[in-house]
């Protein structure tokens, strides 16, 4: 009987272990996640598309009024760049070369990004739905080629540090300073000169900005604007950038779920329309503005002083580079001399000695011959 039990145990061990549901927990979990992910992808993508279309329709009339070409193929519709990014390209307007309206929405389609956003929200502000209008001036006078050299930016006070870090032409706090204007206290105006802030922001423009200050992210006008996608901003040109929030946190975060026509959505659409409309009308002002000669001279002088300061800061580095170049030159010369025949080497060394003697006597105190 003992032999029988041992044989039975051996046979049981030789049989493959029966799999239960518990063994497939990971696979079941992964399958469920895939289904949820795919469902969320299509739902989020469709929601983003509807939001983008709604906001675009609010501004479509304005774009049509100002530009001859609206859309890549003049089809007057948004182009989908990705599931959360939509673009419309416009051209054919006096005082500018082209304008691009880009709508960047929360990645509602991507479950991983949503989870990451939840984790990040504890220490970083959440991603906002925004619309960015970038107007680029052209090289000819008709397309804003004669735009005056200045920088002007309006933004909420809380965003000033980030804007200065992001935009090269605003980073120097001595060159671009804060000025007091009729804007609301929660907004800040940065500019080279007080005159620019005063003349470029007349009362109607300030009134619109004050009314929709909860939706204004930044208005930036500059002759050295970096345009393009945020991580790829390589092209520097004269232009205007207006970034409008499509949802305001001051009124609560549930705007995206509100049906079109309801209170918060209507306010958001109205703000986007007003701010984008103001920016489009602002193009003529920006392209034709002329600074007073005094202000121009002051700006030029300040920029020259800052450039000199930057140049001096690099003195140590330049000296080290010059020293390195000298050492490299001497090493190459030495290597070259070693390849020459002995007579030429002797001639070279004699020439070097004469040069050193000459430098010694000419550099030192002149000796006077007494007669």
């Amino acid at each position, binding site marked *: 009987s003992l032999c029988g039990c041992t044989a039975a145990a051996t046979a049981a061990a030789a049989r493959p272990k029966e799999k239960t549901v518990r063994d497939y927990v990971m696979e079941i979990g992964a399958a469920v996640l895939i289904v949820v992910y795919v469902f969320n992808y299509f739902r989020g993508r469709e929601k983003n598309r509807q939001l983008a279309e709604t906001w675009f329709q609010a501004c479509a009339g304005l774009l049509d009024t100002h530009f001859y070409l609206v859309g890549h193929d003049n089809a007057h519709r948004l182009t989908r760049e*990705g599931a959360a990014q939509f673009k419309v390209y416009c*051209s054919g*307007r006096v005082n500018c070369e082209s304008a691009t309206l880009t709508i960047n929405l929360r990645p509602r389609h991507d479950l991983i990004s949503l989870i990451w956003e939840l984790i990040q929200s504890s220490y970083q502000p959440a991603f906002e739905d925004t619309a960015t209008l970038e107007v680029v001036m052209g090289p000819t006078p008709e397309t804003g080629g004669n735009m005056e050299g200045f920088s002007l930016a309006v933004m909420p006070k809380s965003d000033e540090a980030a804007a200065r870090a992001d935009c090269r032409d605003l980073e120097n706090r001595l060159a671009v300073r804060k000025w007091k204007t009729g804007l609301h206290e929660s907004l800040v105006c940065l500019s080279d000169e007080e005159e620019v802030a005063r003349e470029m922001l007349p009362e109607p423009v300030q009134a619109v900005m004050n009314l929709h200050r909860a939706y204004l992210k930044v208005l930036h006008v500059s002759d050295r604007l970096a345009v393009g996608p945020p991580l790829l901003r390589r092209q520097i040109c004269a232009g205007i950038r207006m970034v409008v929030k499509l949802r305001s946190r001051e009124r609560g975060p549930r705007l995206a779920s509100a049906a079109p026509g309801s209170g918060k959505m209507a306010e958001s659409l109205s703000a986007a329309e007003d701010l984008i409309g103001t920016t489009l009308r602002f193009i003529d002002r920006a392209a034709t503005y002329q600074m007073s000669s005094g202000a121009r001279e002051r700006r030029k002088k300040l920029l020259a002083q800052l450039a000199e300061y930057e140049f001096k800061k690099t003195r140590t580095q330049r000296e080290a580079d010059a020293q390195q170049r000298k050492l490299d030159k001497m090493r190459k010369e030495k290597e070259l001399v070693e390849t020459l025949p002995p007579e030429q080497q002797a001639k070279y060394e004699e020439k070097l000695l004469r040069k050193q003697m000459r430098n010694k006597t000419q550099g030192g105190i002149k000796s006077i011959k007494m007669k």
Partner: protein
Amino acid sequence: VRRPDLVKPYSLNISQEDLPPDYMAILSLLFGLMGLLLKFKFMAWLALFFCFGSVANMKKSETDFKQILSSCMFAIMGLVMNYTRREYP
């Protein structure tokens, strides 16, 4: 204000070298390799999810098919290798 003679046709000037790195695709590649070499099923599944994330967030102007294809291949290979290998007692 509208001028048909001032129309500038749309042109896209983004070269492949200027594109920002796609971290999801890189993570997918990394986890796929680890799942394949270290034979961890969990990592192979993670690679697949990151591959989905990379494809979902792909933008038209920043599409890099080679990177997506390579991360997909590693994720799928990792899963296939983990589930088709013979288990020795």
